């Protein structure tokens, strides 16, 4: 039995809102968003031209793009890839590593294996690969996806005393077990693991084939920023990036925000260049960028300019939050049977986003946020504070300035006022 007499909207109204939702989907793949022309290229913010220029000018360079969750890193990487693809001598390969392997377990060699498979696809579809390269591809496939082999298993009733050598006898029956004693001098850089070295040799055959034809490769690794802790990121990426550097393949990769802090700074030093993508300027009176983001997606069909400004400010400059807020405001208007997004729908959307940031906050974290709201400052020096940054409850304004996410700040203020 229906629980409501009628919930169906007239088709044209429903279609209007559905069109709006398609343009404001925070989970939409960046590729689709770029393809539909829904992105706003703003010279003061975009870094894709710098990324592309770096790869173009310095063969084998390795650049890292760092930013908070929802800051637009994937879009920048894809735009850089497009830019590089305009050069006929360059083959940029976009690789979403997190879609190809389980990054949650340390898996050195995953970047190399993914790169090798992508190179093969590019070679096989555009060039006529020689037989030797096909053999390399087969070996690479085995290394990438594993294989089965037969191993000899000793019989359980085997009696080792048949092979007993009296000279092995010392103080009693036993056997020698080999252990490794570390030396006092450690190598300055970790040596390559054997399996990574073997994988690199296979990929090298393919890159050499392309180099001989005057083609330069650029590996665009996306998804590594999901490894939100700097040490986690580095344990997965280090061996592979060092091996790829020797292949003279340029690299563009995303990294987590934590690389900008604490011990993450040492990881920064490895890269030739690190580009930081901060939250955008939220106030439309200072920068029109966020308003343009809304306009390019057709927000004006349903939202008035003053409400768009309000959404920009409440997003804190986090692009995905801006998209979420606009979508949520649209949902509220739709459920309210309104034809357009009004002020109450925007206010409700801001409160909803604030509530979602509030969910799961611990007492210590609430205290840190409260202190910030009282002007007592913020230092990302401990785990609790770093988590607030990573989860975007606290946003960077500059290298040393921070603010509570505006949507969360509004909800926290209500909670505080209510309990007084």
């Amino acid at each position, binding site marked *: *039995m*229906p*629980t*409501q007499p009628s*919930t*169906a909207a007239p088709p044209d109204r*429903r279609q209007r*809102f*559905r069109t709006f*939702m*398609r343009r404001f*989907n*925070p*989970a*939409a*793949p960046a590729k689709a968003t770029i393809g539909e022309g829904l992105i706003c290229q703003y010279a003061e913010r975009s870094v894709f031209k710098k990324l592309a220029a770096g790869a173009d000018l310095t063969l084998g360079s390795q650049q890292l793009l760092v930013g908070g*969750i*929802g800051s637009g890193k994937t879009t920048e990487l894809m735009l850089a890839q497009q830019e590089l693809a305009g050069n006929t001598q360059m083959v940029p390969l976009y690789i*979403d590593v*997190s*879609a190809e392997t*389980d*990054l*949650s377990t340390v898996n050195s060699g995953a970047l190399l294996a993914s790169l090798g498979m992508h190179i093969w696809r590019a070679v096989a579809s555009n060039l006529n690969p020689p037989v030797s390269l096909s053999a390399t591809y087969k070996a690479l496939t085995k290394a990438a996806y594993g294989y089965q082999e037969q191993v000899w298993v000793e019989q359980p009733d085997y009696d080792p005393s048949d092979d007993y050598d009296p000279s092995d006898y010392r103080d009693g029956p036993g056997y020698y077990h080999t252990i490794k004693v570390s030396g006092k001098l450690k190598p300055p850089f970790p040596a390559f693991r054997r399996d990574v070295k073997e994988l690199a040799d296979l990929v090298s055959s393919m890159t050499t084939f392309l180099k001989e034809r005057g083609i330069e490769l650029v590996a665009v690794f996306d*998804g590594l920023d*999901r*490894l*939100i802790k700097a040490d986690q990121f580095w344990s997965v990426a280090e061996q592979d990036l060092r091996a790829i550097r020797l292949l003279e393949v340029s690299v563009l990769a995303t990294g987590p925000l934590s690389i900008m802090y604490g011990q993450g700074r040492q990881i920064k030093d490895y890269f030739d260049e690190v580009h930081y993508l901060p939250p955008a300027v939220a106030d439309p009176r200072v920068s029109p960028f966020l308003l343009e983001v809304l306009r390019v997606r057709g927000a004006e069909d349903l939202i008035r300019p003053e409400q768009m400004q309000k959404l920009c400010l409440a997003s804190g400059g986090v692009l*995905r*939050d801006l*998209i*979420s*807020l606009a*979508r*949520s405001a*649209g*949902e509220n208007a*739709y*459920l309210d049977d309104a034809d357009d997004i009004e002020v109450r729908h925007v206010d*409700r*959307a801001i*409160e*909803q*986003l604030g*509530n*979602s940031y*509030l*969910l*799961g*906050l611990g007492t210590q974290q609430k205290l840190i946020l409260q202190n910030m709201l009282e002007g007592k400052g913020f230092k990302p020096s401990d785990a609790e504070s770093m*988590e607030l940054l*990573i*989860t*975007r409850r606290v946003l960077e304004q500059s290298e040393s300035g921070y603010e509570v996410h505006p949507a969360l700040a509004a*909800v926290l203020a*209500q*909670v505080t*006022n*209510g*309990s007084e």
Partner: protein
Amino acid sequence: MTSNSAPIFEIVRLIDLQPTGETGFCMLVGPLAKLHLIQELQEELSIQIEGSLAVIDVKGETVLSLVEQLRTKSEAVILMYGFDSWNDGVFASLDINRSMLENGSFLVFSLDLRTAGRFLDNAPNIRSFLGANIFTVAPDPSAMSANEIADRLAQLRNYYKLSDAEIIHQAANRSLAPDPHFIEWLVLLERSDLAR
């Protein structure tokens, strides 16, 4: 009040707005009985959008086995429950592998308040996708008889040792705890305006 409440029929209206073929994300937080929730969601989906529902109990599943299940489902909406059995590391792993969740369905994560907090803290990327789509499932008084409403209100009063007036007062001055039960209480008193 610090939860976004919505009855199932409204959540299904939102699912209807989701562009076909694009993966959607939504979290339902609350203690509503699992079978009741599934049944109501199934009914509303078939009434409003003729959509199909798949249900996955994630208890005992790894992230990769869950992803494998998602890949084989073709239903418009997939509801997942049983997350209370997952430790923080599994949530973090789900977050890292979030690209593998994109299967073109509307994904609904159903969990209790405490587990929701753990989920969101350990999966900041998925939190970002969810945005404001985190709801407490509110009851739909229009589907309940007067006696059913009275019985349920009596249960809540008895359990929390609070009166209706005290709940309304606390909600009005925003000192009511963010508990889905309190939202349900306000909705049954026809004061859902205070649950916002």
